[in-house]
């Protein structure tokens, strides 16, 4: 399937999902956010979802500017609270197909509580965390996913805070679909998104992403392409290979792919099935 795609003779028509007049987007040259969005749009196309039903909600951050560019029902909210706005929307109108576009700061710093409670409720939505280990929008402070030792504008001596493992958190909190992808492995990411969009319940996809302007510059990565390469070479290993590789090849690496997937009752359905049924009987 991957190969088939690669040989496409007609390129994918992103414009049919975009608000073309809003481009070029505000992201810096080489920012990974655009690549993530492209994988998502292809996945949406794979699933043949309707733009009228799609609803994208975000908080604040560079990544959270995504909704402005897609021709869906779009809601750019306040920092960290996208999950809660989305919970209201989804519960009020279960026909909406919810996608959250959020950053490591938006989701895991200020929004951490809403993130875990959303996972716990297992309410049907796809959460995409653009995880670039930095607060891009505010100019490069360290985030709860910044590796120890990294430089940021508020960790000039090197960061001392251990980072979260977003996927572990999602799983512990109760998310029923948890996966990790990268802005480098764009086709794998497309497949992951496609699977996630087919899942009923809270699906979390962490995307290892790059902010060449702040994280890159402060941490001596020469440019966008070098950051991409680093994601490939040093950062991750596929869940399919992880057991086959020798320990020294996997150590310290994040695992890519679908890491957790279970079927559990979805919140809105439970609401109808248990609460409404009892209330109206």
């Amino acid at each position, binding site marked *: 399937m991957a190969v088939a795609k690669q040989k496409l*003779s007609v390129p994918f028509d992103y414009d049919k999902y975009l608000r073309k007049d809003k*481009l070029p987007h505000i992201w810096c040259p080489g920012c990974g956010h655009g690549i993530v969005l492209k994988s998502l749009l292809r996945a949406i196309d794979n699933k043949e979802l309707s733009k009228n039903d799609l609803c994208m909600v975000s908080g604040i951050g560079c990544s959270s500017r995504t909704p402005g560019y897609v021709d869906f029902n779009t809601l750019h909210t306040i920092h960290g609270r996208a999950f809660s706005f989305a919970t209201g929307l989804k519960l009020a109108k279960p026909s909406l197909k919810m996608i959250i576009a959020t950053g490591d700061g938006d989701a895991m710093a200020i929004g951490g509580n809403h993130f875990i409670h959303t996972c716990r409720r297992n309410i049907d939505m796809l959460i995409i965390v653009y995880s670039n280990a930095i607060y891009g929008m505010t100019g490069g402070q360290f985030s709860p996913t910044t590796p120890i030792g990294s430089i940021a504008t508020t960790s000039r001596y090197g960061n001392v805070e251990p980072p979260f493992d977003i996927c572990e958190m999602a799983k512990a909190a109760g998310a029923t679909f948890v996966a990790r992808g990268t802005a480098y492995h764009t086709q794998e990411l497309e497949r992951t998104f496609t699977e996630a969009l087919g899942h009923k319940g809270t699906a979390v996809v962490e995307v290892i992403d790059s902010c060449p302007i702040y994280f890159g510059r402060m941490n001596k990565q020469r440019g966008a392409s070098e950051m991409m390469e680093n994601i490939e070479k040093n950062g991750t290993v596929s869940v399919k290979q992880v057991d086959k590789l020798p320990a020294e090849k996997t150590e310290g690496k994040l695992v890519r792919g679908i890491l957790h997937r279970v079927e559990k009752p979805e919140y809105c359905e439970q609401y109808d099935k248990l609460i409404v049924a009892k209330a109206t009987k």
Partner: protein
Amino acid sequence: MAEPAKKLPRIEISERRCKACSICVDFCPTNVLEIRGTTCVVKDLEACTRCQLCDLRCPDFAIRVFD
């Protein structure tokens, strides 16, 4: 069946969208592209294998490769 004369792909680059980040240039396996000024341009169309890697990784919806 004999191949017909090699048809070249068509590479569309939107100057308005392209931010010259060089990702497509650096990841093109056959060195088709280059940055010129504030945009990316085609340097060697013949070399293009239509692999679409440039499109897949362009963060700016700026490049498309047609058959």
